[in-house]
């Protein structure tokens, strides 16, 4: 099912891209998140990041399957994360779709700081965001890394007061990936 959704997603957003020109497609990527509350640090990681950048009009799309996050300190947190907060059966992916602000030629080798402006969709709630990332291009391979924060109330994820000492309102996210020119 998830696979199917992803295929639909890729098709819908990339149909336009392919028609226009060259794209970078993500073949390796991970997302790591960290909640640093006063009492507890909760971390998890997924390596199922999917993504695509159209280098002609600088548009891009990134997607992650919420259920793919692993590495919670206890199974309880994983259940809490999926069932109570992310409602991952209902909202299976998080996506970030938009355009890169800087007008850089991404076929050229080099290291850049680029800002991507787009809609970040988590828990079914879209928020417009600018996300800064470090990008390096070499021989048709694009590596990117980015750190940013997500505020739970921006995405209608509500926490009972009691767990706020354990789960932070602000979640630190780190995204890394490698893309190849296609």
């Amino acid at each position, binding site marked *: 099912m998830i696979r199917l959704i992803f295929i639909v997603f890729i098709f819908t957003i990339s149909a336009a891209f392919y028609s226009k020109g060259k794209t970078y497609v993500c073949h390796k990527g991970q997302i790591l998140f960290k909640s640093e509350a006063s009492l507890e640090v909760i971390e998890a990681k997924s390596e199922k990041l999917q993504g695509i950048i159209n280098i002609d009009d600088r548009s891009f799309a990134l997607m992650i399957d919420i259920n793919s996050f692993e590495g919670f300190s206890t199974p309880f947190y994983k259940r809490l994360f999926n069932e109570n907060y992310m409602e991952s059966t209902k909202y299976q992916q998080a996506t970030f779709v938009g355009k890169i602000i800087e007008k850089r030629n991404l076929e050229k080798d080099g290291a850049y700081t680029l800002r991507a402006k787009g809609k970040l969709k988590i828990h079914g709630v879209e928020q417009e965001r600018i996300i*800064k990332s470090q990008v390096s291009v070499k021989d048709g391979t694009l590596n990117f890394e980015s750190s*940013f924060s997500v505020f739970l109330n921006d995405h209608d994820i509500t926490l009972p007061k009691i767990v706020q000492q354990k789960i932070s309102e602000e979640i630190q996210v780190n995204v890394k990936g490698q893309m190849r020119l296609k």
Partner: protein
Amino acid sequence: MSIRPIILSLIIGCLALLSNAQSPFFKMHQIGETYRNAKIELIFEAQNSLLWIGTSEGLFSYDGLEFVPFLKSDSTSNHVRSVFQNEKGVLWVGYHDGTVWYLEKQQLNKWEPEEGTPSVPIMGFAEDHNGNFWLASYGEGIYYKSENHLYNINTDDGLLGDDIYVMKTDKLGRIWVGTDGGISICEIRNKEKIINNLTRDDGLPDEIVREILEDDDGDFWIGTYDKGVCFYDFEKEKFEYPLSNWDNGIVSKLEIFKDRELWIGTEGNGVWLLSLLDGTLQKLSNQNQLSGSKIHDLHKDIEGNIWVISNLHGICHANRQFEFIPITTGADFENIQSILADRENKVWVGTEKGLFTHELDELGNSFFTQHLKNQSLNVISLYEDNFENIWIGTFGDGVYIFNKRTLKIRRLTEKDGLSNGSILSMNGVNDKIWLATLGGVTELQLNGDPLENGSLSTRNLNQEDGLGTNFIYKVFVDSKARVWFATDGKGISVLENGSIKNFQKAAHYHEDEPGSEEVLLKAVYSITEDQQGHIWLSTAKEGIFEFDGKEFKHLTVKEGIRDLAITSLITDKKGNILIVHPTGLDILKPETRHLIYYDKAVGIEDIDPNLNAVCKDRNDNIWIGCKNGIIKYLPLNESLEIHPRTRLSNVSIFLEPIDFHSDTTFLYDQNNLVFDYLGLWYTDPSTVKYRYQLVGYDRDWIFSKDRKVTYSNLDPGTYSFNVASTENDAWLDEPIISYSFEVLPPLWQRWWFILLVLLSAGGIFYWYQKARDKRIQRVNLLEKEKAESNLAALKAQINPHFLFNSFNTLVTVIDEDPKTAVQYVEKMSDFYRTMLEYRDKDVIPLAEELALVKNYTYLLERRFGENFKVNLNMSVEQIYLAPLTLQILLENAVKHNIISKTKPLTVNIYMNGDDYLVIENNLQLKIRPEKSTQFGLQSLIKRYELLTGKKMKIEETEDTFRVEIPVVK
């Protein structure tokens, strides 16, 4: 509205003189050699009225005298593109490289939002009604910071362009940006971006919007690329076009003087002034070659100065209240004797060489046109009657009445009834005109236009009628239609209800001086009236008098009048009195008596003004005729600052700057203070003087031109540093800036410390005394108890029973075992000897006491055999006992208990914990008790209490007797 075509002189036979331009006097400012090549981008006035200059080489603060650089702490470019101060007062700086820095504690700090900052130039900042912080970029649209994040709005969101030229907040709190495609109006409502666009379809004359300026009503003036300027009325939500056609190039900047004029800065075509009074457009003349400049910024400051930043001249400023129109060399007249602005605002100038009008050509240059050239007039007074005829008063040739349209002329001389042919001043109301002559006053009654067959009648007034003298300098009609005459030598005369009254003397009355003396007014030169209806007059030598109808108040050098050779007084529309004299202009605010001096810094120099050559035009401008030209004074509608703004800029202790807003108490050795202060007066910064006083140190004000003062070695105490600044030596109403602080006395001089020391010394002394008493008492007691205890022990041992028993025992042993007997005697003598030895000691070690007890026990065991037993169940410890303690207790046990084969007595001696030695025996009291004084036990209890402070515990049950002795350690 349209540009009124400028009519060149129409009168045949007139002479056009090209003169220098009409322009405020600009002064240039150089940043200094180090930054010679810096491109000046902008000027910004902070809330504290300090100026900030943004350049390609960095940010500078400017107080009118000194540029102070503020540079980034990293090595990136310092090219400033925008400066902004938010509501909290934080100064934000946007750079060409896209970074944003803010000023905190006099240092630039980088702003680093998580989302990063643009990589293209920052063009401006704004704050909206929700407190969101906005920035405009040239290439990436606009950004806003809301709560946690930075967001972007660009063409993808519907913005008209990503290159933003200008960003302004409107009165509804929305953000307006000027782009290449028009104006986008943005706001954030419920986190939604709402963008409304204004384009050509909405009436914007040009898509490219370079500048937006807010006026005092909150409406916007918009500067465009090609089509000049338009106006947006928020009430009508419509554009208006004050300029019908514009071909002066790209509008880059705008500035406005309320209800007077709009300054339009262009890209390469200098500055243009759009009059808001009559809609005319005029170029700011090329006096400073601003005409070919690219104008980078325009700024009006709080004193009424206009600052112009241009590519050719960097920073320059001028006081907008003044223009000077010089008479160029080569013109065949000088020395303007009289001046008049007629109903059409044409300015007429009377000179020795005749009558001229002042004109402006299309380029904004002034020139003069001569009239009535054939008459060779020496014009000394001018007046316009109700029929728009110009009355020309001459020196000796009577009056000419002239109409500029019909060109008709009529002359009046003594023959027509004038009292004298030299007319020094004219004034009138309705159909009455008074001529002030050298032979008295002529009152004319007009019946119809005197140039169109109207008749006129004359009546002469002179000394006989009550005038002071027949030599009249000025005639002035006040708001109550009273006519005042300034006479030479005899003060002023007033014509009221047909009769004349004369005032010659004034009480010399100063506000800050008790008592008064009489002053003769003598020659009065000029008269004016303030808004309260008080009459003001200037005299030849005595300065100025204010007459409120009852008494005269005197203003002279003491009150700050700079020059007593006053030629004219005139009241502006705000009620200020302009005092004209050869040194320049003093502007007096009658209510507060505050004076501001204006002279060469505003372009007024070597003016040598003529008597009463002043007039007011229909726009309330005041024109002052001088020897070398005309001063034009424009009363601005802004409420201008009249004081230099005094600021305490820094306080340092031993050259270390401190945060003086919060630090106000210093230690006794932090007593070397430096105060830096300044008085911001951009009109003429070099005239600013200071006075300061450190209250608590200085006995009086100290006057100085320095902007720094050092106080060293201040004694502990409270102080207030007061400082004020002035630009004109009038200190009375200058606001005082005060900073209070305290130098604490050293620790050992503070009252609480002294008190504490005294109290604790007293306490220690008291405690010592008490302890000493107690110790002495205890020693005494101990001595006594010891003596008693020893006595008891001795008594016990020399008890005949003991001896009797001992000897009985001895007798039995001698026969059976002589050796043991010897031993017995030895033990007995040991016992007695040690007892005598220990008698005087306070304490003895437990070991020694035990040795004594063993001897004693030996003696008793010999006597009672198996029936008496002492169990010593302890290791010898480092503890002490009072001597003979155990012996006395054993003695007691033997004394009071039955000891027999059937009832043996067992005494156990052992330690209970570390602190108590226990001696315990089974209790089997003798049926007939031996006589006892309890003396031994009681004295032991007391001794131990004195030695250890603890009580001996005595427990008596049915079958045991137990004593716990608190041991001495």
